C-alpha cells in the first residue's frame, strides 16, 4: 500500500520570543490547510514537558506518522523533539523542524513579514516531512587503544596520558631514541631548568609504562579504517606490524629553519656564525668557545626564517625571542665580561614569566637594539654585523666574534606525505591544519585523528605539553565511551547515474568517497561520511544524495518556498 | 560506589570545554558559574582574531551543548562556598543564589523585563555598562540557561521592600515563575576531581589617570569597543560615540600590562592581536577613518597572527612605536601625546576615539578560592601551576586542575587546549576509580 502522510504541525510561542512578532494562531491555521497535515496546534512552550506530551498523545490518538515543530533553531531543541518523537514510537528522523524564532521573530520585528515568512518555512518543512524516510543510527565498537606518531615531548606526553587512563598505546618514533628536538636542548626559558632532565623524566616514564609499546626507528606506512577502528601498518627494525587503534595522535614536530637560505648572514661560510640550536649544544658542552677562544663580542639576530615573506615564511615562530633572551642570559653567565647585543624587530615575551625574564636579561646588561640586520661581512679576525638601529635611525656596524642566528621552525619535510597518509589538511604555512583555529585546536577534519605539538604550528614546551594532553583528552573520549555513533544522514550513490568522475571525492573533507575499482562508480564509506553534502553539490549527474536531505526532500522544500504556498 | 564525577568551577569557554570533554568521556560533571549564564568573557567579544569568526556564533553552540548535555549538571548564578576531602573524594558545597525566578517554570519570554518599572534603566554589565536593561534580566539573548534573574542590587522591591501595589513582573509572567520568597540554597556534591576555570578580570583603566579614562568620553577600553562593534551590542554594531562616527581613532597598547609602575610586570598576551582585530574592524566599519596604533612590541605570535598583522597594516592602519605618555583635551578632540621612538621625536595625535588595550588581571575572587582549595598564587595573583613546562594544568593540589586565564593570560585556542589538558588530567584520575567498570581487556600489540 502507498504511504499517506499524516503530519502533526506544532507552532511554538516561545513565550513572546516568537509570539510577539509572529501571529502563531494564523500560522497554525495556515498549516492545518497544507497537504498531508492531520493536525496543527500552537502552544506556549513546545519544549516544555506539557508541550512534548501534546506531541506524544497526538501521535497515539491521531496516529500521526510525521511531526513538524516550528520553534527555535534545531541546534537548540532538535535533539529534544527527536527524543519526544521516538518516545511516541516514531522513527526520530520522521521529525522536521522550522526555525521561526531566529529566522523570523528575532530578525523581522514588526509588520506581518515575520508571520508570512513563518508560514513559508512551515510550508517548506511540511513539504519535506511528506518525503521524510526513517533512518537508523548505528553504534560501532571502539578498539581501546591509541596510536601516537612521533616520540618527542608531545608524543610522549600524549602517550602517557592515554596509557594512564587505562588504554594501550603504541608510540612510533622515526629516530633511534625518544626525545625529539628537546633532547638536544640545554635549558628551558624562563626558568632555566635542564631540558635533558625534563626529557629524561618523560622517556623513563614512557619506557617503564606497561601499556605503552615503543617502536623506535619505525615508520608508519599506511593507516586505514576510521574513528574507533584504525589499522596502521608500521615498519620497524624487526619487521612490519599491524597496529589496531581507536584513535591516532599525530605529534611529528618540526624542523629548524636552514640558515643557509639567508646567504647575507654567511652561515656555513663564517665559523663565527651559528644558529640557536648550535648554541644549545655549544653551551651544553660546558665551554662557549669559537675558534679556540672565548668570544668577547656576542651578537644575537632574531627572526631568521620567521616573519619573512621573501622566503615564504610569513609566520612568527613564537619561541625564538625567548630562546634568544635565555641564550643571551647564558652567555652572561658563562662569559661575564662578554658584551652581548640582541638585534630584534619586536620582542615577543608573551608567556607566563617571559616579560619578567626579558626585563632581567636587559637589566643584566644585555643590549637590545631594534633593527633587523642586513648582512654579516668579514673584517679581519672578526665578523661585522651591519644593521640599522631604528631607534637611533643610524646604520651601525657591530663587530662580533660570535653571532647566533635565532632560526625559526618550519614544517617537517615529510608533512605532505603524512598528510596524504592520514588525509589531513595543511594550513597555508604548511603545518597540519586543526579542525577549528579557536575551539577545536587539536582535532582534525578526520574524526579520531588528533594533533599535538609543533606539527600543528610553532610552540614552546609548555604549550606543546598542554596541547599534547588536550589531544590525549580528545582521543580518550571515544576510547572511554567504548563505541562511536555513526551518522545516519549520510551520502549514498545512485550507481545508475554515477559516471565515476570523482569530483565528489575531491571535495570530501573526510575521505569518505572512493572509486570502486571494478564497478567504476563512486562508493561512500558511511562511517567516515559526516553528511555535510559537499559531494552532492559537486556531482553534476545528481547521482549523490544525502539521506534526510535527498533531492526529492530538498526540492519539495524549495518548491514549497518558491511556489509561495502562502497566497 | 557513586559514579565518578568532576566539579568544574567557572562557566567560560575554559570551563565549558573542560566540562564537555569530561562528560563526553562518560563522567558526571557539575558545572558551577557565578553569573546567571554560561559564556564568560568570550560571549562579550564581537569577532575573534585572526580568523574574524563571530565569537557568539562559535561559542553559542558550545554553550547549548553544555546546557543540554545529559551528563552535565548546571549550577548557574551559584558559587562554590566550601571544599573538603581529597583527590578522588572531594565534598563541595555549592550555594545557589536566589534568582527570585523559578528556573523550572521560566521560559525566558521576557514579559517580566518589559513590565519591570526599571526597564531600560539599569546599566548592563554584559554591555560593559554601555547598554541598559531592567532589574529582572537575562545578560544576553543567547544566555544558557535562558532564564531570567532579578538583580538584587537594583530591584525596587528587594532594595526598598516595596514595589508599588503589585509586582509588575509577577503580573506579566505567563508561567508564574517569579518567586520573591527564594533564599540561598545549599547543595553538596561529591566529586573525584576539580577543574578551576574562573577566568580573568580586565584591568581598570582608571588606574592610569594620565589617559583620562572615565573623564574623557572619547576614551574607552578594548572591552567596550567589542560591545560597540558587536551586532548584539548597545549600538547594534555601529561604532559610534553618542551618535557620532569617529574619524580619528587611536589604539594604545599595553595599558595595564608590562607596567611595573602599577605592579603589573607581565604581558597580557592577547591585547596586541585584539587591537589588530579591532583596528581592522574600525577600518571596515568607519570608512575613511584614520587609524593609528601605538605599540612597544607587536606580539603577533599565534598561528596566522603575523599574517593578520601584515594584512591589517596593508589596509592602511598606521603602527607607531611608542608608549603614549598622556591624553589631554584640545577643543573638539582629545590629543594623544607620545614619543614616536622611530622618529626620535615627541608627537601629538588628535583623536575622537581612543581605545585603551586593557590587560588581563586575576579575578578578585581568586584569593578566596585559593584559600578554599589551598591553591598557590604567583606574584601576579594568578593561580600557580605545579610546573611551568610539564604541569601548567595541574595546581600542585592533587585532584585540582587549572584551565584558562585563571592560571595566566591566554588567547582562546590556548585556553581551549589547556582546558582539554585539564580535562585529560581529571579523566585519568576519574578513570582510575572506575577502571574495573570499563572492561578494558588489556589489548596487547601483536608480538613483534
Amino acid at each position, binding site marked *: 500500500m502507498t504511504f499517506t502522510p499524516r503530519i502533526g504541525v506544532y507552532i511554538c510561542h516561545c513565550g513572546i520570543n516568537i509570539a510577539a512578532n509572529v501571529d502563531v494562531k494564523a500560522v497554525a491555521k495556515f498549516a492545518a490547510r497544507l497537504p498531508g497535515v492531520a493536525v496543527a496546534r500552537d502552544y506556549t512552550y513546545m519544549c516544555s514537558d506539557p508541550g512534548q506530551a501534546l506531541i506524544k498523545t497526538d501521535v497515539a490518538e491521531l496516529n500521526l506518522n510525521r511531526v513538524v515543530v516550528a520553534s527555535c533553531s534545531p541546534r537548540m531543541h532538535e535533539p529534544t523533539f527527536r527524543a519526544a518523537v521516538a518516545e511516541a514510537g516514531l522513527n526520530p528522523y520522521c521529525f522536521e523542524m522550522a526555525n521561526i524564532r531566529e529566522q523570523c521573530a528575532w530578525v523581522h520585528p514588526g509588520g506581518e513579514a515575520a508571520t508570512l515568512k513563518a508560514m513559508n518555512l512551515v510550508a517548506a518543512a511540511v513539504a519535506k516531512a511528506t518525503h521524510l524516510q526513517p533512518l537508523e543510527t548505528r553504534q560501532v565498537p571502539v578498539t581501546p587503544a591509541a596510536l601516537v606518531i612521533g616520540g618527542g615531548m608531545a608524543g610522549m606526553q600524549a602517550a602517557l596520558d592515554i596509557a594512564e587512563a587505562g588504554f594501550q598505546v603504541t608510540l612510533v618514533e622515526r629516530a633511534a631514541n625518544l626525545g625529539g628536538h628537546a633532547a638536544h636542548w640545554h635549558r628551558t626559558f624562563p626558568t632555566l631548568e635542564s631540558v635533558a632532565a625534563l626529557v629524561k623524566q618523560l622517556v623513563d616514564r614512557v619506557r617503564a609504562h606497561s601499556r605503552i609499546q615503543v617502536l623506535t626507528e619505525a615508520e608508519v606506512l599506511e593507516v586505514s579504517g576510521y574513528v574507533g577502528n584504525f589499522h596502521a601498518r608500521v615498519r620497524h627494525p624487526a619487521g612490519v606490524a599491524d597496529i589496531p587503534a581507536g584513535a591516532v595522535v599525530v605529534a611529528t614536530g618540526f624542523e629548524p629553519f636552514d640558515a643557509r637560505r639567508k646567504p647575507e648572514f654567511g652561515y656555513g661560510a663564517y665559523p663565527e656564525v651559528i644558529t640557536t640550536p648550535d648554541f644549545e649544544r655549544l653551551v651544553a658542552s660546558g665551554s662557549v668557545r669559537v675558534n679556540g677562544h672565548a668570544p668577547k663580542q656576542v651578537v644575537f639576530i632574531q627572526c631568521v626564517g620567521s616573519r619573512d615573506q*621573501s622566503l615564504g615564511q610569513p609566520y612568527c615562530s613564537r619561541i625564538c625571542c625567548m630562546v634568544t633572551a635565555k641564550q643571551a642570559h647564558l652567555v652572561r653567565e658563562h662569559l661575564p665580561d662578554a658584551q652581548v647585543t640582541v638585534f630584534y624587530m619586536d620582542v615577543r615575551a608573551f608567556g607566563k614569566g617571559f616579560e619578567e625574564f626579558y626585563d632581567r636579561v636587559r637589566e643584566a646588561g644585555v643590549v637590545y637594539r631594534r*633593527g633587523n640586520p*642586513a*648582512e654579516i661581512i668579514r673584517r679581519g679576525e672578526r665578523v661585522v654585523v651591519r644593521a*640599522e638601529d631604528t631607534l637611533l635611525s643610524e*646604520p651601525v656596524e657591530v663587530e662580533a666574534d660570535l653571532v647566533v642566528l635565532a632560526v625559526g621552525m618550519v614544517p617537517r619535510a615529510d608533512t605532505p606525505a603524512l598528510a596524504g597518509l592520514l588525509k589531513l589538511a595543511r594550513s597555508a604555512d604548511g603545518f597540519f591544519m586543526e579542525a577549528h583555529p579557536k575551539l577545536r585546536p587539536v582535532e582534525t577534519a578526520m574524526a579520531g585523528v588528533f594533533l599535538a605539538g609543533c606539527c600543528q604550528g610553532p610552540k614552546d614546551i609548555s604549550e606543546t605539553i598542554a596541547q599534547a594532553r588536550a589531544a590525549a583528552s580528545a582521543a580518550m573520549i571515544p576510547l572511554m565511551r567504548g563505541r562511536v555513533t555513526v551518522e545516519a544522514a549520510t551520502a549514498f550513490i545512485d550507481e545508475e547515474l554515477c559516471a565515476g568522475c570523482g569530483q565528489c571525492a575531491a571535495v570530501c573533507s573526510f575521505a569518505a568517497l572512493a572509486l570502486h575499482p571494478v564497478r567504476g562508480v563512486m562508493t561512500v564509506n558511511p562511517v567516515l561520511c559526516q553528511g555535510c553534502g559537499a559531494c552532492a553539490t559537486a556531482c553534476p549527474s545528481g547521482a549523490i544524495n544525502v539521506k534526510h536531505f535527498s533531492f526529492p526532500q530538498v526540492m519539495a522544500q524549495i518548491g514549497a518556498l518558491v511556489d509561495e504556498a502562502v497566497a | 560506589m557513586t559514579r565518578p564525577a568532576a566539579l568544574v568551577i567557572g562557566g567560560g569557554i575554559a570551563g565549558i570545554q573542560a566540562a564537555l570533554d569530561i562528560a563526553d568521556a562518560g563522567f558526571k560533571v557539575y558545572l558551577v558559574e557565578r553569573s546567571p549564564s554560561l559564556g564568560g568573557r568570550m560571549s562579550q567579544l564581537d569577532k575573534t582574531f585572526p580568523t574574524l569568526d563571530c565569537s557568539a556564533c562559535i561559542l553559542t553552540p558550545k554553550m547549548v551543548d553544555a546546557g543540554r548535555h545529559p551528563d552535565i549538571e548546571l549550577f548557574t548564578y551559584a558559587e562554590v562556598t566550601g571544599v573538603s576531602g581529597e583527590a578522588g573524594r572531594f565534598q563541595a558545597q555549592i550555594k545557589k543564589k536566589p534568582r527570585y525566578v523559578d528556573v523550572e517554570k521560566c521560559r525566558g519570554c521576557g514579559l517580566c523585563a518589559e513590565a519591570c518599572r526599571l526597564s531600560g534603566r539599569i546599566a548592563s554589565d554584559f554591555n560593559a555598562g554601555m547598554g541598559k536593561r531592567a532589574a529582572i534580566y537575562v545578560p544576553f539573548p543567547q544566555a544558557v540557561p535562558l532564564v531570567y534573574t532579578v538583580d538584587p542590587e537594583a530591584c525596587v522591591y528587594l532594595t526598598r521592600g516595596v514595589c508599588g501595589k503589585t509586582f509588575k513582573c509577577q503580573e506579566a509572567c505567563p508561567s508564574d515563575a517569579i518567586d520573591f520568597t527564594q533564599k540561598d540554597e545549599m547543595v553538596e556534591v561529591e566529586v573525584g576531581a576539580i577543574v578551576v576555570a574562573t577566568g580573568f578580570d580586565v584591568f581598570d583603566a582608571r588606574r592610569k589617570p594620565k589617559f583620562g579614562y572615565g573623564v574623557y568620553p572619547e576614551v574607552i577600553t578594548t572591552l567596550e569597543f567589542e560591545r560597540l562593534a558587536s551586532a548584539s551590542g548597545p549600538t547594534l554594531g555601529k561604532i559610534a560615540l553618542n551618535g557620532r562616527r569617529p574619524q580619528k581613532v587611536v589604539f594604545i597598547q599595553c595599558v595595564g600590562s608590562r607596567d611595573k609602575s602599577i605592579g603589573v610586570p607581565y604581558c597580557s598576551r592577547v591585547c596586541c592581536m585584539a587591537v589588530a582585530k579591532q583596528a581592522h574592524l574600525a577600518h571596515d566599519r568607519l570608512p575613511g577613518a584614520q587609524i593609528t596604533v601605538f605599540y612597544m612590541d607587536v606580539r603577533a605570535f599565534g598561528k596566522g597572527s603575523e599574517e593578520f598583522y601584515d594584512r591589517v597594516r596593508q589596509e*592602511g592602519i598606521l603602527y607607531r612605536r611608542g608608549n603614549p605618555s598622556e591624553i589631554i583635551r584640545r577643543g573638539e578632540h582629545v590629543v594623544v601625546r607620545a614619543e614616536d621612538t622611530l622618529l626620535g621625536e615627541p608627537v601629538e595625535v588628535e583623536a575622537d576615539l581612543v581605545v585603551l588595550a586593557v590587560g588581563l588581571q586575576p579575578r578578585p575572587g581568586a584569593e578566596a578560592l585559593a584559600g578554599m582549595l589551598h591553591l598557590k598564587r604567583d606574584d601576579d595573583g594568578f593561580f600557580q601551576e605545579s610546573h611551568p613546562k610539564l604541569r601548567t594544568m595541574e595546581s600542585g593540589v592533587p585532584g585540582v586542575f587549572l584551565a584558562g586565564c585563571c592560571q595566566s593570560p591566554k588567547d582562546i585556542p590556548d585556553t581551549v587546549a589547556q582546558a582539554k589538558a585539564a580535562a585529560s588530567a581529571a579523566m585519568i584520575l576519574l578513570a582510575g576509580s572506575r577502571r574495573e567498570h570499563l572492561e578494558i581487556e588489556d589489548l596487547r600489540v601483536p608480538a613483534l
Partner: protein
Amino acid sequence: MLQIESRPFALEHGLFACIQCGKCTGGCPMALKTKLSPRTVIYRLLVAGNGFDLEGREELWDCTTCSTCYSRCPKQVNPMEMIIALRGAFVEKGRVHPNVKAAFESTFRHGNPLTMPREERRAWAKDLSVKPFETGVEYLYYVGCTPAYDPRGQQVARALVRVLQAAEVNFGILGEHENCCASEVRRLGEVGLFEMLVEENTGLFHELNVGQMFTTSPHCFNVFKNDYPKSGMQVQHYTQVLAGLVERGALKFTGKLEKTVTYHDPCYLGKHNGIFDEPRAVLKSIPGLKLIEMDRSREKSLCCEGGGGRMWLEGTNPNVRLAQLRVQEALATGAEILATACPFCLLTLDEAVKHVQAEEKIRVMDIAELAAAAL
C-alpha cells in the same frame, strides 16, 4: 615646496606593509656615506598624514637602485621603486640636475644619453664583420649605449663579438636602428620618456620579430626582461649565452690565461636577477684562470655606485666612493684582475683603480675580454 599626497602614494607602493625593521637602510650602500635611509623615508611618508614635502631631500638622488633593500626586505616592500617614484615627482616639476636633463634630451634626440650622434652607433663594429639583424637570425645582440660609444665599453663589445664568432653563434645587431633601452631614464624617474622608448623599441623588435636577444649590459638586460611589457621574446645577458655555449662545448678556449681573478657581481645581474653562477662558470672554464672570491660576493656584492642614473650624478658625498672601497677589497684578495660583466661597473672600477693608484697591481676587465683573450 614639493608636496606629494603621501597616503595614496604609500598605499599604492605598499609601504604600509613595512614593519620598520631597518634591513633596507642597514644594507643600503649609500647609507654608509649619505643621509639616504629608505626605512626613514618610508616612515616619514607613513606618518606624514597626507602631505609630504620632498624639498631638500637631495639624498633621494644618491640611490644607485642596487636593490639591496628590496632583495633583503622580509615584507617584500620595494624601497628602491619608492625612491624612483619620488624622483618622478622631482622630474614632473622639472627639478632635475642639468646633467640629468642633458641625458634625457640626448636620449630623446639621439636615442642615447651620452649626447652622441645616432649615425655613429655602429662605428665600434665597422671593421668587424657583424651582420645587421633580420628575421630568421637566431639572436639579436643588443649592444647598448655605453658599449656602443664609450671607448672602454667598445673594447668589451668588440671582444664579445670575437668570442661569439669563434663559437659560430648566429647573431646580428641593429646598428644605427638601435635605441637606448631607457633603463637609466626609468631609474631617474622620467616615466614619460621611458614609456615612449618602450613603445619604439618593442615596435622595432616586433617588426623584426626578434625571438631571442642578449645584451652587453645587465641594465639593458634587466629593463627588457622585467620592465618591458611581456612578449614571447627571450632576453638573456651575454654571460648566460656564453655559459650555455661553454656547457654545450660550442665555445672552447685554445689559449691559456695564467691569472688570479676575482669577480665583482654587478647589482643588475646578481641582486636584481639572481644570476651568480653563469659568469663564474665562464671564468672557471678559461684554462689557467684562478678564480678567488671576495668576502662580499654574490648576494652581498658591494654596489659600484654606477647605477640608478649615478653615471650622471656625483651624489651628495663625492668624497667617499664605493668603487674605491670595492677595489680595496679586490686588492685584499691578491687578485691580479678584477673581473665584472657590466659596462658601468667597468668604468667606475677602472676609475677607482686609477684613484687609488693600483694600476700596476690590478686590472679591471670584463668577462667578455677575458674570454676573448683565451680564444
